[in-house]
């Protein structure tokens, strides 16, 4: 029994502790795989909702030269004032005129008999005039020359010893060669007065001489004729003159302005609009800058008295490669030397609602692909050769151009820009997560931009190199045609494998226009909001031994 008592427990212990070792759990040799999957096959984690991401931040407008118009629309914009040189002719030759004139006519030879009243002396005489002037060389032809002070002076002067008065009833017929001022009936000046004394001086203001246009060698020669006639009835004669001399002359014949054709070279006015510090979206990547309606406005004030057409050449340069656009505008002018103004808008679609703004339809977008870094505007004024020009001799012609050039962020259907946003400093935990798991991002985009957005997420290593882990393309629809924001669900599945550490995630956006929203402005109030969640297929898988 003693032996049994010794061996029985031993047998029992041996049986208990040696016969039931499970070979599947040989902890001496087996390793434990510490890979764990957390969250289940359908793990979806709501990550959150972004703050309202304003377009300026989103498209990296901050710090750029982008302006905001009064209605909130983003635009590239420049305004300024330029002085435009206008024709200036050398009119010094006009003052060096030569005048030919029949100076005097003897009207009445008188006998020696003493008479108190004589019958009227009737007469009719022609006086011929001739003027020769040196003209500015730009004057091609002349239609008229205008004077402000020129006078036709006629003097009736009896011979010595005459005393008495006379009743005069005179007529001066200027024909078609003059244009006179006052007392005019069909260019005839009437002078009728009683009891005039002698000598009698009559001044008739002559405002213009009319020409046939011919100019030869910058010189014109003109001759005209004035017919003076009528009767003079002497009264109260104490002594009878032996004759009465009639003298006609032109005084103050310096011209003030002339009308004719002028062929003058006017200096070209040039100014620039340099597009500096543009957002990268317009300078990087494959940009199709289909600006919907860029426009220029010119407000021109001038004292021109002649029709001047300015040919406008707009040169755009992108990296030195030019594109050109030409159009013409008519500068404002009046008959007088008063200032006049005109406003032009050059655009594909008229922007201004003012009827005073003249719209010139030009598609400036054509010279903005690629986006220029420099605009050069050449204004080449040309005096109209079709219409007679009035040139004021003493006037200094000027024109001022207030210009503004707007490139509002309104895009056409072909507009495409690319830009990216980088989320840096990805923690090692997130790096592992992206590397070891198949991750899907899901959520909802709210987009008030009138642009479709295409987004791809790409993982980068520490050197910024692209790793073969990227998402499918997410398409975020634009706002609707009324500008109301769109809400769209999305799912982006991160696919690919890498052994590299992931340092950053780059969000690569492509924004494009479409037919529905083309022409809608990108406004400073435009935004995107992202409601984001992450789904990990098979759960969040990580190896605890790596920690």
């Amino acid at each position: 029994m003693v032996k049994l008592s010794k061996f029985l427990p031993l047998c029992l212990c041996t049986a208990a502790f040696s016969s039931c070792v499970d070979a599947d759990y040989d902890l001496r040799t087996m390793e434990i795989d510490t890979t764990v999957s957390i969250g289940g096959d359908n793990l979806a984690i709501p990550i959150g909702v972004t703050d309202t991401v304003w377009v300026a931040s989103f498209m990296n407008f901050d710090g750029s030269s982008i302006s905001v118009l009064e209605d909130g629309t983003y635009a590239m914009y420049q305004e300024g004032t330029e002085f435009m040189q206008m024709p200036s002719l050398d009119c010094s030759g006009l003052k060096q005129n030569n005048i030919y004139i029949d100076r005097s006519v003897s009207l009445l030879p008188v006998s020696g008999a003493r008479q108190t009243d004589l019958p009227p002396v009737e007469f009719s005489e022609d006086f011929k005039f001739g003027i020769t002037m040196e003209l500015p060389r730009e004057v091609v032809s002349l239609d008229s020359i205008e004077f402000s002070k020129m006078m036709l002076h006629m003097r009736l002067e009896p011979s010595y010893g005459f005393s008495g008065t006379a009743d005069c009833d005179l007529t001066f017929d200027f024909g078609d060669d003059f244009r006179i001022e006052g007392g005019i009936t069909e260019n005839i000046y009437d002078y009728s007065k009683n009891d005039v004394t002698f000598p009698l001086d009559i001044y008739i203001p002559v405002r213009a001489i009319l020409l046939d246009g011919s100019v030869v060698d910058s010189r014109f020669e003109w001759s005209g004729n004035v017919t003076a006639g009528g009767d003079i009835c002497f009264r109260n004669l104490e002594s009878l003159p032996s004759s009465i001399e009639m003298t006609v002359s032109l005084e103050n014949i310096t011209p003030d302005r002339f009308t004719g054709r002028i062929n003058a070279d006017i200096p070209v006015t040039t100014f620039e609009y340099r597009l500096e510090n543009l957002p990268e979206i317009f300078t990087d990547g494959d940009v199709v800058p289909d600006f919907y309606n860029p426009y220029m406005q010119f407000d021109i004030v001038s004292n021109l008295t002649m029709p001047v057409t300015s040919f406008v050449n707009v040169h755009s340069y992108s990296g030195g490669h030019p594109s050109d656009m030409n159009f013409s505008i008519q500068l404002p002018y009046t008959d007088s030397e008063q200032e006049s103004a005109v406003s032009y808008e050059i655009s594909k679609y008229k922007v201004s609602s003012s009827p005073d703004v003249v719209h010139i339809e030009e598609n400036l977008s054509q010279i903005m692909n690629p986006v220029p870094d420099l605009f050069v505007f050449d204004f080449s004024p040309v005096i109209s050769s079709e219409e007679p020009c009035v040139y004021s001799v003493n006037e200094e012609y000027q024109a001022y151009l207030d210009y503004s050039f707007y490139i509002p962020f309104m895009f056409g259907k072909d507009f495409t820009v690319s830009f990216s946003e980088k989320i840096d400093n990805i923690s090692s935990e997130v790096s592992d997560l992206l590397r070891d798991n198949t991750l899907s991002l899901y959520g909802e985009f709210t987009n008030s931009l009138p642009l479709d957005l295409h987004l791809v997420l790409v993982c980068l290593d520490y050197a910024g190199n692209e790793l073969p882990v990227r998402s499918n393309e997410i398409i975020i629809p634009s706002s609707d045609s009324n500008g109301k924001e769109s809400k769209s669900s999305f799912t982006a599945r991160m696919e690919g494998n890498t052994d590299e550490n992931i340092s950053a995630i780059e969000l690569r956006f492509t924004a494009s226009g479409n037919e529905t929203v083309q022409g809608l402005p990108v406004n400073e109030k435009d935004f995107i909001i992202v409601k984001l969640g992450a789904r990990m297929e098979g759960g969040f898988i990580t190896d605890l031994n790596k920690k």
Partner: protein
Amino acid sequence: MKNKLSIFALALLVMVPAVISAQSLKSDYFVTASYDRIKLNPAFAPHNGYIGLPLVGDLYLNVGSNMAVNTFLIPLNDGSGKLGTFMHPDVSPERFLSNLESQNYLHADFSTSLFSYGRYTADRNGFWNMGFSMRTESDVNIPYEFFDFMKSGMTSDNTHYSISGMGLTQSVYMQFSAGYSRRINDNLRIGANIKILSSLIRMDLNIDRMDITMTPDEWIIDTETSLDVAAKGFSFEKDEEDRISSVNMTSLPGMAGFGAAIDLGAEYRFGGILEGLNLSASITDLGAVFYGRNNLLYAESGGTVNYTGFKDMDYENMDISGQVDEITGLFTEMVNLKESAPSSGVSEMLPASFRVGAEYEFFNNILSAGLLYTGRLNERKMYNELTLSCNLRPSKTFALSCSYSFMNIANSIGWALHVTPPYGINFFVGSDYTYLKYSTYYVPLDDTFFNVHFGVSIPIQGGKMRRAN
């Protein structure tokens, strides 16, 4: 207060499976040389008197869980020959969860006798015993739904989990006991044992309810959490928002709860033609523990956390680690406990046990076979267990028992070995739960019921030693 009581009750429920075998071996029930079996039936008396050595006189370690190692470590079928954790992606939720029950508990308790003493009266008909011991218990209960949540996670775009009854309990007791067993006649022996219980600390942390709803856009977590602490000389330290940040000791620790219990038992040894047949019965732990109001601390939190992600994220300067901290803070907010004053003290019934044993002795009492029924009743449920026992007593100094238990708790094989020479040192060692399937390093597989009971004592009255009858 109702909540408090239910929380205590829940804690007791969690403890029950382990308490059944608490502090004494069922395998010892029919080992007549054992002085430890007095705890199972106070009518019993060992062969001789004893003085237990401090600390090792009655050393007991028990670990019980209905979760097994091979539930959580699973051989992978990927040809790697490795083990994977239950969270491994190659381990399907079905495979893992099929090994779990609705409530998954882990119980550990440890007790040691600081002093124990027993001796026969002069007429050898009575046996006195007394003891002073310390005991700690830890319980964790994790419901099936929590593991389902951990493993299955989000199974669809509208996944819901309702988790309740998850908790952690920790307690430390001191116990003084004194008992007396008396032979009434040649057949009958009765006994009683009185226990004085002193609870030094008891803490229950419970997540009473956690409803989790997960959709791609929103996670909703609705929780009710409570913390019960019964301790003297402690208080909660709170931050400026009245949230509990730590527990401070304000005075010397003392007795947080006081209780008393009585054990009663009887043994009848048949004579005549039925000689060799012994019947016995006992009821133990009839009593309660009372915790005074001043020694109770109670805190609770509750509310709904609605997580939809971060608001106003700065996507250009996304601080991912900061956002993770924010998530952590959000979930921490769910368990921000705030103190509530208990309105009165708490009485806690001890889970009473009933035992009925039948033994038949063979071969001049060298061998016996026994059948023991154990029933344990708590406020909610009756637990039953049957133990078949084979007992070998080849000499007065050696006894060996083997047992097999089945029914409610777990099917297990037990054993006990007693070496009881009349002089010198007596010792015993045994276990009620001997796992039969294990890995190398003897890590148990399939289930985790394990206890070991060990004791060293000095026999007294050895010269008058006799076989108990």
